[in-house]
């Protein structure tokens, strides 16, 4: 037991903070978020070519660095601090994780090197409605063996309008209980993609419409469990990465708001000297610390999960709960922090000019994405208390 960063991890963190301080300042974020693409391709190239973040936790045989999930979360946290705009979460935490979980050797060798080259990717699974697990999949596939055809509408696809590669979840049109994952090029015939403008402009969403999209048999990821459990595990891993980002945002907005209150004077004092302001900051600081523990506990669990054969080990078995705890806690902590920070800023906090609203909107969008606090708490409640409504769910 040694629950602190190693020296190497501290170096990774410091390097990440320094890189993003230079490359993802407020002006850069504002330029990127105003574009439909949503990020600066030069920044993405720098992130890949200089920092190798996109392959941090991808095993070395596929062109990656072979680091762990803790390291990935350190990077996510750093990006969350700066609201850095890049197709990083979608490419790494959604698509690459999907390949690691469900691709066979050949499929990993087919696709992961393309990610390592800097191509972007994402996951499309959500068919609408209020659920954020495998039950949300409504797209369908037909066929078997050599060729499959995909149909359906997908929403809330992160970076879906710009990704080079798509990981698609779909149900067997003949048997709704059979769920599969397909990896394909985004320019495959029959795919229409539409950018959806979002309240949080720093992360882009798209809707996808698939009409008779035909793919070869090997597009179907071989290791995907038909019962949806693989997709749920993928979403758990994504939750942990997203929670790390939220944790970074919580810390950053706290520090920025505190710095502002140290300068701003009212009634002849800095407003930081008012107990109401101090106690708001202290309450955020508490949540920020606990969020940090939640994220890196969950990251350790994810590390063990990905290291062992899936499901082995006491710690690895905690993945669903660890992910739910991290996402529930960090979602609420971030929104709490960003909302209270805006109050600490006072009038300037709700102007476009100051960055407080960017954090506030990001807090809300990442709270909703992959399920909010109540959603994940109910998952945990089911484990502790049995299903709601006496099992009728």
């Amino acid at each position, binding site marked *: 037991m040694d629950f602190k960063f190693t020296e190497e991890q501290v170096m990774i963190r410091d390097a990440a903070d320094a890189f993003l301080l230079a490359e993802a300042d407020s002006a850069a974020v504002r330029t990127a978020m105003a574009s439909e693409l949503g990020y600066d391709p030069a920044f993405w190239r720098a992130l890949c070519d200089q920092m190798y973040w996109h392959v941090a936790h991808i095993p070395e045989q596929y062109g990656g660095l072979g680091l762990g999930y803790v390291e990935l979360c350190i990077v996510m946290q750093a990006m969350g601090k700066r609201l850095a705009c890049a197709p990083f979460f979608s490419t790494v935490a959604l698509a690459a994780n999907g390949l690691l979980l469900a691709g066979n050797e050949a499929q990993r060798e087919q696709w992961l090197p393309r990610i390592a080259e800097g191509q972007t990717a994402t996951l499309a699974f959500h068919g609408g409605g209020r659920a954020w697990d495998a039950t949300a999949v409504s797209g369908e596939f037909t066929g078997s063996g050599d060729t499959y055809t995909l149909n359906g509408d997908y929403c809330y696809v992160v970076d879906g309008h710009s990704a080079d590669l798509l990981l698609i979840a779909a149900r067997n049109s003949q048997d709704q209980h059979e769920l599969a994952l397909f990896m394909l090029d985004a320019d495959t015939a029959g795919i229409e993609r539409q950018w959806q403008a*979002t309240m949080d402009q720093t992360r882009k*969403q798209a809707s996808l419409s698939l009409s008779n999209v035909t793919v070869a048999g090997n597009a179907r990821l071989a290791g995907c469990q038909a019962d949806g459990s693989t997709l749920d595990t993928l979403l758990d891993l994504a939750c942990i990465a997203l929670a790390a980002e939220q944790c970074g945002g919580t810390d950053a907005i706290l520090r920025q708001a505190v710095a502002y209150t140290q300068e701003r004077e009212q009634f002849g004092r*800095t407003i930081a000297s008012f107990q109401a302001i101090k106690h708001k900051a202290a309450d955020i600081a508490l949540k920020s610390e606990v969020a940090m523990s939640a994220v890196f506990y969950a990251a350790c669990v994810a590390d063990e999960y990905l290291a062992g054969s899936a499901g082995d080990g006491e710690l690895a078995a905690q993945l669903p709960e660890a992910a739910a705890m991290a996402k529930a806690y960090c979602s609420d902590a971030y929104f709490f922090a960003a909302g209270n920070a805006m109050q600490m800023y006072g009038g300037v906090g709700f102007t476009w000019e100051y960055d407080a609203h960017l954090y506030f909107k990001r807090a809300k969008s990442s709270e909703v994405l992959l399920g909010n606090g109540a959603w994940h708490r109910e998952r945990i409640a089911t484990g502790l208390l049995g299903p709601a409504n006496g099992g009728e769910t």
Partner: protein
Amino acid sequence: MKLSFDTADEQFRTEIAGWLANNLSGEFETIRFRGGPGDEHMFGEERKRWEQQMAQGGWTCVGWPEEYGGRGLSIEQQVIFHEEYARAGGPGRVGHIGEGLAGPTIIEFGTAEQKQKYLPGIRNGTELWCQGYSEPSAGSDLANVKTKAEYDQGRQAWCISGQKVWTSLAHESDWCFVIARTDPQSQRHHGLGFFLVNMHQPGVEVRPITQLTGTSEFNEVFFDQALAEDILGEPGEGWKIGMALLGFERGVSTLGQQMAFQNELDEIIALARRNGAAQEPDIRQRISEAHIGLRLMRYNAMRMLSGPADGSLDSAALVYKLHWASWHRSLGKLAMDVLGSEGELLMEPPYELSRLQSLFLFTRSDTIYGGTNQVQRNIIAERGLGMPKEPRG
């Protein structure tokens, strides 16, 4: 104690409701339910014409004494007027600063000539007003006035220099009342004057402030040797007059505000029934809580308006701002949570918000402008409960 209205009042309700039904149509159909908080910058021209339509019907300044062109309505009938106006979807009143603040202040403190000069334009909806209260370095610390008034012997008038902020409707207005320091040696609430300034002159510049909604309800107003047409009261009486003016702000119009809130809540309830959120226990509790909060806000306001016989007028009035601002901010969050994942998707690029999205974002300002929640709590504790004042720096 009696809560029901008597027959004469109910007849009055029929009268105003009928007039609104007949007049809020045709060219004015498009501005129904528009121009409220978060939407104040919209349809300026149409709403100016509507103001004059109201005036022709005799429905402006209904609470003013008849000698100044008002209707001298009783409190009950004013309540009914504002309720029916909001229920019919009457647009945000561009004349409300003149009618509710400037006018009553001029009636109380103005000379006969000043009343003659300014009241008819307000009454007839032809001259619009805005307020010059807050300053950038002041925020909730209203007495921290840096704007200067110097008597220019050449122009035989007071000249104003300085900057005001959070001035809504400034670019639509003909007049602004400005609190400015007449005695350069004075501090805080001493040595201030209350000036009436024509907005159409070279020394006045209006710059919109873009808010987190991407819209600009508020402005900065810069005065550079701007001529003050009049001073209300004497130099040095500015604070007294300004405080009296703020007293007019809490009045019967709050009940109209509540009807607008009811419209928002109704939209949320309809949405929840439509999209299934109405079946989520957390949403049910929160919608119920919002409903209770709004109903009780109404009865709180009615106690406030019914006067001091129960000995607690002051306290009911003291808590009013904190109550509605906190309630409204919660409603904004509730709206987003009922929207769920759809809440992220904008109406149109680049940043066209739906009414509920705008509610979510704009209500973050409710707990800040007009005295932050923290300042409101200080006021309640100090004036309402007799607790010690904050030490000054």
